Structure formats: structure tokens, C-alpha cells
């Protein structure tokens, strides 16, 4: 594609990067910028029905101003969905990252055995689609087929319904924790391995215990990775959709509007109100971006300090 532009050297060198980037830019405009612009456009409009809504021209798209936004912000279903996801995130993010950090530190410790096997096993869920993961756990939560209930029954212990009420949060959180711990563990472990050995030697000579080394040296030194994993976990949590959607057929306790994104989907395709859905989507996108940029700013400051050393 650049063979013609590159014939004249100086011009070729100058124009080549744009030619190389042309596919990415085209795809970005078509599948990112245009849809976002269209969604924003839709969010400021609404359908007005005149008369009985019959015949051509009876349904007209008109300017709606901020009405869709005020409707969305006062919509109790959307707010409840946001609160549910907040509760879910408060379980998922700390437990998942806590486990990921714990496993990474254990992998990094001395004289530990079977690490190639255990590391791969803990990372394996990353290869399993969220829908399939939710499906597998969903069956493990079903009293008829679950080994947990089998054991509880034999021991004559109470058998809680995992797909209802409070336990439902735990059940959903568990799926996300199971699927995400391995990936985050690898990110943190990679950072741990990049720490030069001399750093520990000095601490060891001073008689520091492995626990002290972990708390005082290792964790502070992998802080940038922890920030990164925290950031990606928050984004993923805000976008939860697949797991509750997959569990929905197995229980009556997951409403179609369980998470904000499910509510957007429901309004757009279930109720056919693309205008309300677009306004809700815009609000969710805004919250995500605001959170992300706050985080990236903090992370960048740290990176710059490190680059300056």
C-alpha cells in the first residue's frame, strides 16, 4: 500500500506512518467513533406518537433535550442495578486481587514445589468463556447435581439456596473471582520476578523474615502492577453482563435488569426504546471514563517518577 508513496524518500518517510495507521483509523471511525456519536445523538431524541400512532408519519423522532438523561438518573431500576453492581464489586475486586497477590507471592517464594502445574491450573480459567464458566458454576449451585449439596446432605447440614437473595451475590462474585484471579496473578508475578535479586540479599543479611520481605519490599515494589490490575478489575466489574445473564435461566432471582448494562440491553431490545437506552449507556460510559482517567492519571504520575530515576 505504501510502495508508491515510498518511492520518493522524504515524502515516503513522512506519509508512511499515516498509511500504516490507515486501517486502524478507518476501523476506529466506523466501529468506535461513529457508533458513539450516533448513541449520543439518539440520547437527545425521543419518539413522539401523534393520534393513535397509526399510519405513516404518526411516529416522529423529535428533539428531547435532557429528558432521557433526567429519566435515566431518576430511574429506580437503573439505580438499583448500580447498587447491586457496587455490592458485587466490593466482594469481587478485593477478594480477587487479594488472592492474586497471595498466589503471586507464594509462587515467588523459595523452595515452593509444583509451581509449573499450580500456576497453569490457576491461570486456566482465563481460557474458559465467561458464559461457560457461569454455566459450569450454575450447575454446581443446583442442588440436584451439585457435589456441595451432596456433601451437605450427607452431613445433615442446612442447605442454603445459592441462587437467591444474599448468597446470589456470593455465587456471582465467585464466578468472577474464579475467572479473573489467574490473569491478575500472572501480571503481579511478572512484576515480582522483575525485582533484582540484590534487593533481597541485603534484607536477608539483615535477618528479615520472608513475611517481612514480602510486606516491606515485594508489595511496595509491585504497587504499579497492583494499580493496573485494580484498574482493569474495576472496569470489568462495571461491565458485568455475561454471568448474570447466563444464570438467569437457572433461577427466578436474577431480574433482566440486574446490572446497569443488562438494563441498557433490556431497554434497547426488550422494550425497543433505543433513546432511553442510549442515554443510560452514555451515563455509564461517562462514569467509566471518569473513573478510568482518574486512575490513569495517578498511574502515569507514578510511571513518570520511575522513568525519571
Amino acid at each position, binding site marked *: 500500500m505504501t510502495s508508491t508513496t515510498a518511492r520518493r524518500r522524504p515524502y515516503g518517510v513522512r506519509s508512511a506512518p499515516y498509511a500504516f495507521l490507515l486501517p486502524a483509523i478507518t476501523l476506529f471511525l466506523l466501529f468506535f467513533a461513529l457508533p458513539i456519536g450516533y448513541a449520543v445523538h439518539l440520547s437527545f431524541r425521543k419518539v413522539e406518537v401523534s393520534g393513535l400512532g397509526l399510519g405513516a408519519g404518526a411516529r416522529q423522532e423529535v428533539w428531547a433535550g435532557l429528558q432521557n438523561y433526567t429519566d435515566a438518573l431518576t430511574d429506580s431500576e437503573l439505580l438499583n442495578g448500580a447498587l447491586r453492581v457496587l455490592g458485587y464489586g466490593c466482594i469481587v475486586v478485593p477478594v480477587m486481587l487479594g488472592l492474586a497477590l497471595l498466589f503471586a507471592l*507464594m509462587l515467588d517464594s523459595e523452595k515452593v514445589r509444583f509451581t509449573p502445574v499450580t500456576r497453569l491450573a490457576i491461570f486456566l480459567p482465563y481460557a474458559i468463556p465467561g458464559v461457560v464458566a457461569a454455566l459450569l458454576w450454575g450447575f454446581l449451585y443446583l442442588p440436584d447435581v451439585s457435589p456441595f449439596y451432596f456433601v451437605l446432605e450427607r452431613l445433615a447440614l442446612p442447605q442454603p439456596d445459592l441462587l437467591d437473595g444474599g448468597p446470589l451475590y456470593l455465587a456471582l462474585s465467585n464466578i468472577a473471582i474464579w475467572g479473573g484471579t489467574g490473569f491478575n496473578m500472572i501480571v503481579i508475578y511478572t512484576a515480582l520476578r522483575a525485582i533484582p535479586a540484590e534487593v533481597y540479599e541485603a534484607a536477608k543479611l539483615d535477618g528479615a523474615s520472608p513475611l517481612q520481605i514480602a510486606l516491606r519490599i515485594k508489595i511496595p515494589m509491585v504497587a504499579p502492577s497492583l494499580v493496573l490490575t485494580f484498574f482493569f478489575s474495576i472496569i470489568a466489574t462495571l461491565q458485568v*453482563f455475561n454471568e448474570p445473564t447466563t444464570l438467569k435461566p437457572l433461577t427466578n432471582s436474577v431480574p433482566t435488569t440486574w446490572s446497569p448494562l443488562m438494563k441498557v440491553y433490556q431497554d434497547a431490545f426488550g422494550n425497543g426504546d433505543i433513546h432511553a437506552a442510549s442515554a443510560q449507556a452514555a451515563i455509564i460510559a461517562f462514569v467509566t471514563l471518569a473513573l478510568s482517567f482518574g486512575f490513569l492519571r495517578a498511574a502515569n504520575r507514578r510511571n513518570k517518577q520511575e522513568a525519571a530515576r
Partner: protein
Amino acid sequence: MSSLAVRKTRPAAGTTPGTAQGPPPSRRTALVPTITLLLGAAYCLLPVAWVVVAATKSGSELFSTFTFLPGTGFTDNVSDLSTYRDGVYWQWMANSALYAGLGALLSTAVSALSGYALATYRFRGRETLFNVLLAGVLMPPVILAVPQYLLLAEANLTDSYLAVLLPQILSPYGVYLARIYASAAVPADVVEAGRMDGASEWRIFTRVALPMMVPGLVTVFLFQFVAVWNNFLLPYIMLSDDEKFPITLGLYTLLEQGANTPALYTLVITGAFLAVLPLVVLFLVVQRFWSLDLLSGAVKS
């Protein structure tokens, strides 16, 4: 890349650098970390082990025998699944392979071009462009997918293979990884030497830079393959003809129908088992080529 490598800090006295075999018997195993990791591995393998066993059970065994006791119905389950709606299950598998394989290939090509350009050239608007492309990572998929659906509907492209393929070609994360890798793996003086020899920019890219970028691009390909294979939302929104479904969406519809008819449970379970298999195998085969270090943005130069 050092997924199987061993720490460099191990004390030298009396040790062999233990790889998969672990440390020599003369040294005591650290019990707490080993047991913690084994428990973690058991937790992660539990659902997989369950589905492997459950897929061997016939419908009645599923509810009557102990969960982890293998059954006798595996071949029947597979043939039931294969005949379900004239073998639509295998169509789903083929579709997933197509979406993920072709999609990841195209995505890797676009990422390679963009990453190379962003890493080697200095040009006006470079950082702005990079940041704008990266911002795509932050966009929740539903927020893109709903207007994407409406726009593709205008172009009469919904419910087609293209509707699932096209929106996933540009991967902001892929561009990011390719840029990091290109700036570490392709030295500026090599590119300059190519120019001195009178090679065109395109030729320098294909003949000189691309071979150097291969290990990084393998990671981009695998990452994108997993992302497309695992994607549920986009096909869920775009497709209504189940002949075009990928395996994730197919299994979901099967579960939706099967949830109230326990007779269909065995189909869902066997389907889930067979769906997990290709990715786990792919994973075990390629994990040594998969430079996980790159996922966290760390590249040793």
C-alpha cells in the same frame, strides 16, 4: 516468555536449578506456599473436573450417582448432541473457529501495522492518535454494541458473519501491545539501515521489522483469539439465525431451553465440556510461546 523459567535468586549452595521436577530432595519444601498454591489450583480445577465427569453421565446417572463418580453415557451424550437439531452444535463450533481464527488474524495484522508505525515513526499527532485508540478499551461493550447494531442494521449487515467479525478487528489492547513490543524489538538503526539501502518503507516493515515482531504478535493473536472466542455480548446482540451462532451463544440458548427440562441437562453439560476442550488444549500447547510478561507491559530490551 519465561513462563517455565525459574527464579534467579535461588541460593547456589547444593541446588540444581530445579525446573518442572522441583528442588532436589535434600532441601525441605516450603509447606505453606506449596499448600496454598495447591488449594488454589484445586479451586480453579474443580468446575473443569466436574464437567469432565458430568459429561460421561447419562441423564438418570446425573441425578442419582455421586457427582464425581464417572458414568457410562459419554458416547451417547456426544451422539445425542451431534444429532440435536441436525448437528447445529458442530456448526457453532465451526463458527467460533471462524470468528476467532479469522478475526484474530485480521486483528493481529492491524495491530502490527499500527504498533510498528506508532513505535518507529515520529509524526504529528502520534500521541494523540495512540491515546484516542487506547480509549477504546475503556468503552463498555454494550455501549458500543447497541449503536453498532443500529448502524449495521442500516447497512443490512446485521445477522451476518460480518456483523460479528468487523467490530472486533480493531483491538486497542492489541495496538498497545504491538507498540510496546515493536519499540523494544525493532531497533531504530536497523530501520535506518534499510532506508540507506534504498528499501521502501513497506519493504522495511515486511522484511525487517515484521520478523522481529513475531513473538509479540503471537501474544497479540492468542490474546485476541481468546477474546473473540469468549465474546458473548456482540453475537448476542447481532445475530438471530442460530446457524451463525458462535459456541458461547449456542450454549446459552441451549441452557435457556434446557433449564426447565432436566432431560436437556446432559446436552448442555456435554456441550460445555466439548466447548472448553479446544481452548484448554490450545492453551496447554501454546503457553510456552505465549509471552505473558507482555500482558503487563513489561518487555526486557
